[in-house]
C-alpha cells in the first residue's frame, strides 16, 4: 500500500506535529517501508477466530476508598510549568 505525502501531513496534524518538507519526504518512505513490511507479514495469518489481547494479565480497575488524602502542594506542581500566573498554568487564549 502506498503512503502519500498527503497521508503524512494528515497524520502529522492528528499527532500535533509540524514537519519540515525534508521530514515529510523521509517519513513517507520510512512509513511505507515499515507499514508494508509489517502488514504483509501479519496478513499471512488468518486471525478471524483469535481474540485480541490488549494485556497479558487479567487486569481490572483498582479502586480505593473515596477518602481525601494529602496530595501535592500547588507550588510544588507549578514549579515545572513553562509559564504560570497567580497559582495557575498560563496558556494562550482558547475562547473568543
Amino acid at each position, binding site marked *: 500500500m502506498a503512503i502519500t505525502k498527503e497521508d503524512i501531513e494528515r497524520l502529522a496534524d492528528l499527532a*500535533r*506535529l509540524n514537519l519540515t518538507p525534508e521530514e515529510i519526504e523521509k*517519513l513517507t518512505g520510512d512509513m511505507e517501508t515499515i507499514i508494508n513490511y509489517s502488514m504483509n507479514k501479519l496478513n499471512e495469518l488468518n*486471525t478471524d477466530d483469535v*481474540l*485480541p489481547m490488549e494485556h*497479558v494479565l487479567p487486569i481490572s480497575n483498582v479502586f480505593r476508598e473515596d477518602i481525601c488524602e494529602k496530595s501535592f502542594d500547588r507550588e510544588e506542581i507549578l514549579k*515545572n510549568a513553562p509559564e504560570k500566573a497567580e497559582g495557575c498554568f498560563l496558556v*494562550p487564549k482558547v475562547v473568543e
Partner: protein
Amino acid sequence: MKLTDLTASMAAEKIKKREISVIELTKAYLERIDELNGTIGAYITVCAEQALRQAESVQKKLDSGEDILPLAGIPAGLKDNICTKDVKTTCASKMLDNFLPPYDATVTKKLSESDVIVLGKLNMDEFAMGSSNENSWYMPVKNPLDHERVPGGSSGGAAAAVASHMSCFALGSDTGGSIRQPASFCGVVGLKPTYGAVSRFGLIAFASSLDQIGPITKDVVDCAMVMNIIAGHDPLDSTSVDINYPDYTTFLNNDVKGLRIGLPKEYFGSGLHEEVKEKILDAVKAYESYGAIIEEVSLPFTEYAIPAYYIISSAEASSNLARYDGIKYGYRAKEYSDIIDLYKKTRSEGFGTEVKRRIMLGTYALSSGYYDAYYKKALKVRRLIFEDFQKAYQKVDVILGPTSPATAFKLGEKTANPLEMYLGDIYTVSVNIAGLCAISLSCGFDSKGLPIGMQLIGKPFDEGTLIRAAYTYESNTGKSGVTNCGI
C-alpha cells in the same frame, strides 16, 4: 583490584566487615565517572553532592551499630526515565531537559530505603525508543569495550556504566529488549522481570502494556540481590501483581540437574550470526554437562513478533506521548500564534526524529479506518505469540537462545534504515509481548573481542529458575561478563 571492580555483593561484604567505608567506595565511583564519562557518555546527570551526603549518613548508621540492609552503601545509577524527586529526569529528550519530578518512582524510593547510594541518571535512547543509544538528545553512548561501537539500547547508558565500573549496578527499563540487548552488547547481566513484578509507578511511560523496570548488574548474584529490593506489589501501579515474591537469593544454587531447557528452532535460523550461534551452542553443551535436559521446542509465530511489537508499542507510545503539550511541564516553544500552534511547535521542536517516527506510526495504526486492520490485527497476533510460549512451557522449564542476532555494531551503521534496526530485536520483543521474564548473560566473545549474550526466558513470575540457571552457568564458567572484559 580497584574498589570499583568489586561486584555489589563483594563490596557490601567489605562494607559490613569495615574493610572499606561507604564514603571511600562512593568517592571511588565518582572519580571513575570524572575520568570516563566524558568519553563514554553514560551519565546525563551526576549527583555527586547528594551521593556523598547519602554515603555519610549510611556510614553513620553503620558506625552506630545499626543493622544495615544487604546492599546498603552500594552506589548505583538509574536510567533517566525513572523519576527521582528534585533530580532532573529527562528521558534523554529536549522535551524534558528541565523536568524536576515532584516525586520518586517506587523503585527509587525502594533503593533509597535500602540505603543504596544514587550516583546519577543514565543516558538512554530518547523516551526509550531505540536499540543503539544513538537517539539520545544529549550524546550517543559509546560501548566501553570499543568506542567506535554502540552499547545497545535503549538502556545503553545503564549497561555501559556497569560494564565500565562507573556504577556498581543500574536500573534500566525494557519494553522490547532495552535491558537485555545492551547487557548483551556490553558483557553484563540484565534481567527483564515478568510484567507486573516491578512497579512502574514513576517510570515515564513508553508502551504501558510492555514496559518493565529491571536490574543491570556485574553478575547473577547482584541481579538476585537487586530483585529482592525492587520486586513486589505496589498499590500505586494498577498493573502491579499482588502475590508473594520470593527471596531471589535462595535461587543462587549451582544445580540444574533435571532442568528442562528448550531450544526454539526459530531462534537458530537464518539471520543469526555464525559466531553468536557457535557460542550459544557451546553454552547449551555446558548446560547438558551440568545435568540439564535439552529439548527442541517450536515457537512458530516468532517471525510475526517484530511487526506486532512495532505496531502495538508505537500505538501505545503515540497515546502516552500526547501528554507533552508544553503546558504543565517540560519544553514550551518560544513563539506561537494560538494553542494549537503552541502544541505543534512545542512537540516538533521538543521531540527527536525516532520519537516522531514512532508517534506517526502509532497515530497511523490507531487512526479511523486503520484501527481494525493494523492495531487490532497486531493484538490478535499478540495472543498467538503468548500461546506459543504457553505450549512450549508444557514441555520445558526455561527457553534458551541468543539475546541478539549479532554483537555490538558500529555507531552510525544502522541509523539510515530504521526497519533494519528494528529487525535486530527479533529475539527479545516476544518476551515483552507475552509478559514473560528473561535474563541475558555473557557466554563468551566473538573474534573481535565483543561479548555475546545468551538469553534465558522463563515462565511468568519464575525469575527464580532464571537466576538458578544463570548462576549455575556463571559459577561453572567464571564468565561473569565484565570481570573478563579487562576494562
